[in-house]
């Protein structure tokens, strides 16, 4: 049987959860497409489907806003090519806000 969706879990911390209805963990299913899902694509999807307020505190241009740390399965995304990382089933992607003043 071919799975037609990609199930991953998202984590939000350090205040980033406040932009997502105070949810710290969200499990999502991404529709499988011709193209491989990358974190860059995922960010657009998050912006359209999950982000509840002040998008500027999370997204900037085609990446996360400076001050948001990203970890893929507990590994700094700088080690896995950041926005170009190709998402795999069961991945856990965590976003931690380090923004000052709150």
């Amino acid at each position, binding site marked *: 049987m071919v799975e037609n969706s990609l199930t991953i879990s998202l984590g939000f911390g*350090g205040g980033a959860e*406040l932009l997502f209805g105070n949810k710290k963990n969200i499990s999502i299913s991404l529709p499988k497409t011709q193209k491989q899902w990358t974190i860059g694509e995922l960010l657009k999807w998050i912006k359209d489907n999950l982000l509840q307020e002040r998008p500027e*505190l999370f997204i900037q241009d085609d990446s996360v806003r400076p001050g948001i740390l990203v970890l893929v399965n507990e*590994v*700094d995304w700088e080690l896995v090519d950041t926005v170009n990382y190709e998402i795999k089933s069961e991945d856990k992607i965590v976003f931690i806000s380090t923004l000052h003043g*709150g």
Partner: protein
Amino acid sequence: MCNVGDDVEEEKAKFMQARTTVNLKNSVCVKCRTAKPQVVLQNQYPYCKDCFLSATVHKFKALLGKNRIAHPNEKVLIYHKTGHASTALLHFLRTGLDLTTPKKIRFEPILLFVEGDFKLSVQQRRLILQQVSEEAQRFGFRINYVCLTQYILDSTQLSSLICDKFDDVLIKENDAASIAGIMKKPNVTTQTEIIKLYEQRLLVDVAKFLNCKCIFTPDLGIDIASQLLTNVCLGRGEHIVFDTGTVDSRDSEVTILKPLRNFTIKEIALYNFFNGLEPVRFLAENVNPYKSIQNLMQKFVSDLQENYPATISTIVRTGDKLGVNKNVGEAKCLLCKAPLGTKPDTLSSSEATNFSHWVSTQTPNCGVSVRDRSKHILEAFNNADYGKYCFSCNQIQPFLCLREV
């Protein structure tokens, strides 16, 4: 022999180092050289989780060990705030206290939370207090609360302002207005400066009240850098050593230590992440970076952090090279408590500023010779005697409505 290429290299070294992109694919941890890295520091050094965590704890202990400010069994006041830095500090302290080895921390931390988020709703402020209290409880620390507004309005009743239950903190809808009421329409920069001065004094007052000889603040490298540049802008260059150094010994009884000053926010946030710690956070209103010098400096250093990460530690280390002014007497500034300078033989920059202001505001007597004219102006010039306030506080002082501060 002159080589064009060499020149270019030299030219480069003069400028700030931009963020570097290093290919870290298939890299190993820089410390143990075996494990797979999980963290990248300063955009180029990969660490495995274990080496990262032990290096972070080591950095904290090294700073404490080097300064030996807090002695065994003494009480230390921990200036506790919301956010990553404070949470990590509590974890460093708790794990240090729980050790059974000779490296165990032997002083007794007491937390202080200063309630001063006047811009938030009463409900939000209550929620923050509650979460802060839960956090202190989780770490097993004693915590005290003080409402900054009440302190600013009347600092003489300190004992009645210190609460050990968060429910007892007096929070009012009109706190922001009450604070504004003690000032004569200052600009945002001056207002921020005045509140900061009160906050500083509150810390020292509470420390004395609770018999603490030492205070720890949660300032990170980026906070130090922005404070340093703010000081330069506000004519507080002389106080950089106190405001941004590892140790602030301005007060003869209470020493302030900044044990997190060598950390970046990324190190601290990842330390929290790997230890499963969640700091207390709230959604602050958007700050306009152009509203005050302090905001602008914050934006400036955040941008530096993003684009030229190495410059933050350069700013901090440059500050470390500055010394305390030797030409000081016994007197201290009534507002910021920094030692006041005595008259040196040469003009200091603040005196030179005063002189140039004086000269340019005098109406010259054209009936006498040029020589007599300048002689007259020189004789009439009486350099402001900072008997009570330092240069910078002298500019702030007129905005305060209180009689004697």
